[in-house]
């Protein structure tokens, strides 16, 4: 069954069983979002390595080339700087490209086009030249792909004015944020996660609507809590929820904030939560120095929430090393549930 075919299967099953939930994994959520946006606006097109005839290196674009053909789904040679620049130029001239990087590691070859040609142009032209482009692809660590294929770029791109940077966790995030990104007239860096592609989530009928978008720049409180705030993005949100389940048994109620967007950062939601709980732990897959957690801590310090902190904030991050290959080393290079629990207890002085 194609993803859309599966959707219709589920839809009719739901009608008969009177339950309006669709089980959709992150990959299919991204696929459906692109499919619907390609159908909705003929200026939208997808380009990247293996996106067309191979159905996508990670199958995220499965079925799209068959449906839309060579004009809208374009296989590129292995020339990131060139095709990212071509994508930005197409955006200058009125199209709405989705430029896929097979992984965000390869974006470093093209980063000049993302930053200097895409992010800065609207400002440099004083508003004369918008750049409606989405750069997307898997970000951060995977499993056993070693140092050159495992870097998280949230902090790198989150640093730059002129970019919107989003980092979905679940299928609702993936679907809604990708639609929002494609409809946005600005350059959006869309950081997916390879290990999340196959993970299924239940989506409501409302989420499955064609015009469902998740607003960029708004975090979501995934779990209400009173004792401590956990702020995270992407795959680590799941770990935070798992840690919260364990901690609840010990009477600690964690509030889990899913950032959804790295830039612009939803400081209001973070502050409101910290002012409620008085304690903060940030959790991310990327390296600690100059990272997402560092930014969150600085912003909390600078605002009203600081006065509500009962203890210094703690960051849980990837270990400050290039990603090793051996499984035991790799497992200990990324945040685990036990690391989150440990940090929560440290902050709460338990």
């Amino acid at each position: 069954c194609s993803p859309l075919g599966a959707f219709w299967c589920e839809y009719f099953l739901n009608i008969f069983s009177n339950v309006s939930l669709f089980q959709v994994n992150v990959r299919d959520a991204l696929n459906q979002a692109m499919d619907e946006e390609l159908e909705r606006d003929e200026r939208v097109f997808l380009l990247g390595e293996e996106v067309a005839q191979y159905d996508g290196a990670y199958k995220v674009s499965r079925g799209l080339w068959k449906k839309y053909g060579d004009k809208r789904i374009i296989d590129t040679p292995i020339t990131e700087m060139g095709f990212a620049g071509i994508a930005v130029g197409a955006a200058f001239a009125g199209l709405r490209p989705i430029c896929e990087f097979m992984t965000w590691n390869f974006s470093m070859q093209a980063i000049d086009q993302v930053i200097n040609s895409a992010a800065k142009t609207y400002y440099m032209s004083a508003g004369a030249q918008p750049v409606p482009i989405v750069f997307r692809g898997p970000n951060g660590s995977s499993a056993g792909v070693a140092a050159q294929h495992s870097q998280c770029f949230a902090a790198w791109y989150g640093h730059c004015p002129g970019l919107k940077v989003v980092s979905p966790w679940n299928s609702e995030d993936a679907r809604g944020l990708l639609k929002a990104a494609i409809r946005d007239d600005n350059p959006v860096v869309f950081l997916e996660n390879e290990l999340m592609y196959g993970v299924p989530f239940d989506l409501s009928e409302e989420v499955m609507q064609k015009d469902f978008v998740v607003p960029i720049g708004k975090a979501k409180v995934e779990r209400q809590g009173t004792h401590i705030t956990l702020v995270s993005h992407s795959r680590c949100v799941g770990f935070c929820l798992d840690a919260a389940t364990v901690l609840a048994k010990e009477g600690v109620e964690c509030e889990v904030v899913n950032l959804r967007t790295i830039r612009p950062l939803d400081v209001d939601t973070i502050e409101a939560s910290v002012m409620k709980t008085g304690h903060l732990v940030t959790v991310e897959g990327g390296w600690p120095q100059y990272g997402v957690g560092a930014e969150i801590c600085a912003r909390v310090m600078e605002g009203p929430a600081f006065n509500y902190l009962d203890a210094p904030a703690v960051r849980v991050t990837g270990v400050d090393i290039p990603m090793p290959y051996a499984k035991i080393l790799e497992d200990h290079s990324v945040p685990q549930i036990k690391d989150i629990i440990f940090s929560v207890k440290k902050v709460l002085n338990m």
Partner: protein
Amino acid sequence: DLYFLCVYRSLMCHSLSLQGARMVASTRSFADFTPQKCELHRLEAGPSETAVLTREQGLQYYRTMQTMRRMELKADQLYKQKIIRGFCHLYDGQEACAMGIEAGINPTDHLITAYRAHGYTFTRGVSVREILAELTGRRGGVAKGKGGSMHMYAKHFYGGNGIVGAQVPLGAGVALACQYQGNNQVCVALYGDGAANQGQIFESFNMAALWKLPCIFICENNKFGMGTSVERSSASTDYFKRGDYIPGIKVDGMDVLCVREAIKFAADYCRAGKGPIVMELETYRYHGHSMSDPGVSYRSREEIQEVRSKSDPITMLKERMLSNNMASVEEIKEIDVEIRKVIEDAAQFAISDPEPPLDELCNHIFSVS
């Protein structure tokens, strides 16, 4: 061996009369510096070897090129007075390239270039006023003072780009949009001899050729990438051949008619769906790389003077028109006086217009639909 253009003479020989259009084209011969005819790469036939120049066209080209020249010299002056700051890369000497290209394409076609962009900003429709005011960083500048010398934009003109070579894939992308939208438009993507070795240019060549994008890649070869001569930077200085599988044309970039005929040929080629084409315009800049480069440490003053006296594009056009009775000396002088006034007024504006208001600082980060 001369580069021949046919000469047509009106039968109405009122040599002092300035009435009516007179059809003229000229022969030009030049020895060392520029080639005498368009060398071709992977092309059976090339640009037309005859060019027709009407009086109106001649006067228009003259006016445009002279305006560009005077504008750049005014920028030089303002820079030395410290009224313009930062980077300022001047185009004087290369006017025939910008003028010839604009004469051979439509306003609905697209163009992108690197940082030596003031000339193209003008030919693509921005006033001298708005250009100079952008250089002086005032609110009346074409980018409201937020872009500066290297970041000026107009309709179907995508700057002004500061990163060497980055504009070439961008131009190929604009061409992709033209193809996608089926609008029969082409994109001219310019780069210098210094940029010609950039990897991303070859990546652009590859994709443009694969997908037959309507992109005209143009290398403005002014012999120097900053202080490095072409012989010291490039294993192959045949820039029109560097597209390899892409056909190429070598053009005398000091002759506005040569440039115009070549770009017409190239645009027709692209519009016919044959794919991209590469052009090399042999030209010369009188100034150094930028205002911080005197431009005489890597070349001699004699060389600069020789080009000025033998190959100046504006002088060549003027002499052509005068010797063919297409205009009079007085008429040309009158145009010069008018241009001087335009430049002075623009400079006055650029000096007196206020700087952007501080509350503009954080505007234009995002487009809000």
